[in-house]
């Protein structure tokens, strides 16, 4: 890695950066309303503009979107920034791209910075692709001469050459985004900031963009700051990662470790869950069964070893008469990709109001070492070959962790998948 030799040179330094937002009424909306509030306060009366039901004490309170960030980003490194919603990622990028100023603290940036908090800023639907490239490029800080020089590359990269002199309002959304990204990708800046911009375009184009970014960081020695919820792109692009939580840096360092820290936070380690008050998803229009409880039986933790079966206790109520009910127990990885499913057809019929408790056992020996989220779904086969879901809830999470045995490989789910198929039988051998 070439960031070893660059480690000394600082690209961005944040020291004690805080950003405060006011909660409640933000500075009023209209001048008359502000004067009204002021007048009421002078007379010691209640503010007529307070939203009814809000806590008075909250009105003056503040919210720290960033609460003391100290961070050094070195030249030529690709730094990933991850964290849940509201952790402060976007606020941090906004400060770095100078869209808004910090409340406290200092930021030093060495080099020209280009930020892509959004692709296609300043695009106007009436103007042609070419005109928009000039406009967008200039907004991002390029001069006309620089854009002229890069125009060919930009058009080439965008894959929309035939339509470059057509108003962009006639573009498909994919073409629009491709063109916009191409402009941003051809900036000459030493530091690039990107906020989820890769979550656009088709797969081939996404890969092309990632390659371009990696090339920028690894070959040209540029500094890349990348925010994403897609851990795969973080893995592909970044060589260092920080995890933000509640406006603070909670981890800084190795990418995989950072992802683990961020992911584990999302994994619930309880072995029992009560669904009485759980809000069902919107698309579930016709709930005929209501799952009340789910529990891993005889377990103190949700970690299962290699051969241990998963014993699950379910308790549900029939909201209507049901017939020929089936059950799915779906296993997803923490990156929200479905991996495998247990299924039972036609195992149950019952009357309205009836409460049933059931214990089931699942052979999990094929499920390999990783963390899993689950979904529990009751369904009916319809006569037309489709199926209707009667209830669907996110189930308990669990972890598979085999005891380490000699002469066995340590399972690598990212490369081999999450399921180990039965050992092949040798039919003949000579």
């Amino acid at each position, binding site marked *: 890695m070439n960031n070893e030799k660059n480690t000394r040179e600082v690209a961005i330094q944040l020291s004690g950066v805080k950003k405060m937002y006011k909660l409640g009424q933000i*500075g009023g909306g209209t001048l008359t309303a*502000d004067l009204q509030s002021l007048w009421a306060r002078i007379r010691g009366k209640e503010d007529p503009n307070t939203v009814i039901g809000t806590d008075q004490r909250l009105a003056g309170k503040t919210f720290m979107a960033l609460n003391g960030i100290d961070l050094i980003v070195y030249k030529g490194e690709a730094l990933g920034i991850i964290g849940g919603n509201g952790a402060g990622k976007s606020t941090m990028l906004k400060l770095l791209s100078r869209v808004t100023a910090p*409340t*406290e603290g200092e930021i030093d940036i060495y080099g020209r910075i280009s930020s892509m908090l959004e692709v296609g800023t300043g695009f106007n639907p009436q103007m042609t692709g070419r005109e928009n490239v000039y*406009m967008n490029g*200039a907004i991002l800080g390029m001069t006309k001469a620089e854009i002229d020089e890069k125009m060919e590359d930009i058009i080439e990269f965008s894959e929309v050459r035939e339509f470059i002199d057509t108003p962009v309002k006639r573009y498909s959304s994919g073409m629009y985004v491709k063109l916009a990204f191409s402009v941003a990708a051809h900036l000459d800046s030493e530091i690039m900031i990107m906020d989820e911009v890769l979550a656009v375009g088709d797969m081939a184009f996404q890969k092309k963009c990632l390659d371009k970014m990696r090339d920028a960081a690894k070959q040209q020695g540029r500094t890349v700051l990348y925010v994403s919820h897609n851990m795969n792109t973080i893995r592909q692009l970044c060589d260092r990662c920080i995890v933000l939580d509640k406006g603070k840096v909670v981890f800084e360092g190795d990418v995989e470790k950072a992802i683990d820290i961020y992911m584990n936070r999302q994994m619930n380690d309880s072995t029992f869950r009560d669904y009485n008050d759980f809000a069902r998803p919107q698309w579930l229009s016709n709930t005929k069964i209501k799952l009340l409880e789910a529990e891993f039986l005889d377990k103190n933790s949700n970690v299962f070893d290699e051969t241990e079966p998963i014993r699950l206790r379910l308790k549900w109520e029939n909201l209507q008469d049901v017939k020929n009910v089936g059950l799915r127990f779906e296993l997803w990885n923490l990156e929200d990709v479905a991996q495998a499913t247990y299924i039972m057809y036609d195992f149950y019929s019952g009357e309205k109001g009836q409460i049933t408790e059931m214990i089931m056992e699942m052979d999990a020996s094929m499920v390999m070492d990783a963390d899993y989220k689950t979904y529990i779904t009751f369904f009916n086969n319809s006569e037309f070959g489709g199926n209707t879901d009667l209830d669907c809830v996110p189930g308990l999470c669990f972890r598979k962790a085999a005891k380490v045995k000699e002469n066995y490989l340590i399972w690598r789910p990212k490369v081999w998948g999450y399921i180990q198929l039965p050992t092949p039988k040798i039919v003949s051998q000579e």
Partner: protein
Amino acid sequence: MSNQHHTHITSHHRLLDLNLREVWRYRDLIFLFTKRSFVITYKQTILGPAWIFLNPLISSIVYAFVFGGIAGISTDGIPQMLFYLCSNAIWIYFSSGLTKNANVFANNANVFGKVYFPRLTMPIANVLESIVQFGVQMLLVILFLLYYLITGAVAPNWWAWLLIPVVLVHLGLLSLGCGIIISSLTTKYRDLSIVVTFGIQLWMYATPIVYPISQLADGTMKTILMINPVTAPVELFRYAVLGQGTFSWFSYGLSWGITVLVVFAGIMIFNHVEKTFMDTV
């Protein structure tokens, strides 16, 4: 790639930090903004840029009919159409710049919220757009002027034409200053954008646009007119083009004084709001 480019960001802002060098670096953006507003305004219209002519032409005809015809307001012996066209050109130059700049933050919040560039580029581009618009309208004025020169109805002060650029800079600065003050306040108080629409109407009647200043007797109205910083440059402009007008060094000096004050106040408020307006807009 050395440390040649260093940006330091703090919570503090300097009172009169204009950073004109940065604005200059973004000059291409200013021209593109200017060009864009023309392209957008006239794309998919049948008459296209002809609207720049039609707009003042029609309103001048209406003025000539209402103020000249019905109300019988004198134009100091200047042919009515020429008088109103000339007044309109300079007033539209000022008011269009002001209107656009008064909404510059609110209208561009989506762009300002996503990427940094010197915010001042936008108001400057707005004034440039008004200058181009003014140039086109002047062609119309000159066309009428030629006709009346041949008939001998007007006698322009040719030497004073040299002062027209000064008038443009003067009114440009004034509209920029007023505009950015209003737009800085509109980020918090949306009321102001409504006030601006009819405020500009009122301002026009407090400026000798549809009547010459010589029509007024001394009194409150005349005092208001003399304090109004737009009056002096407008009169100077008509003095040059039409050879008519009441020009006084006192009101001209006062007007410049107010303009400088407004511009400085504007920049100060602008600097204050610029960095964090995204949090309130």
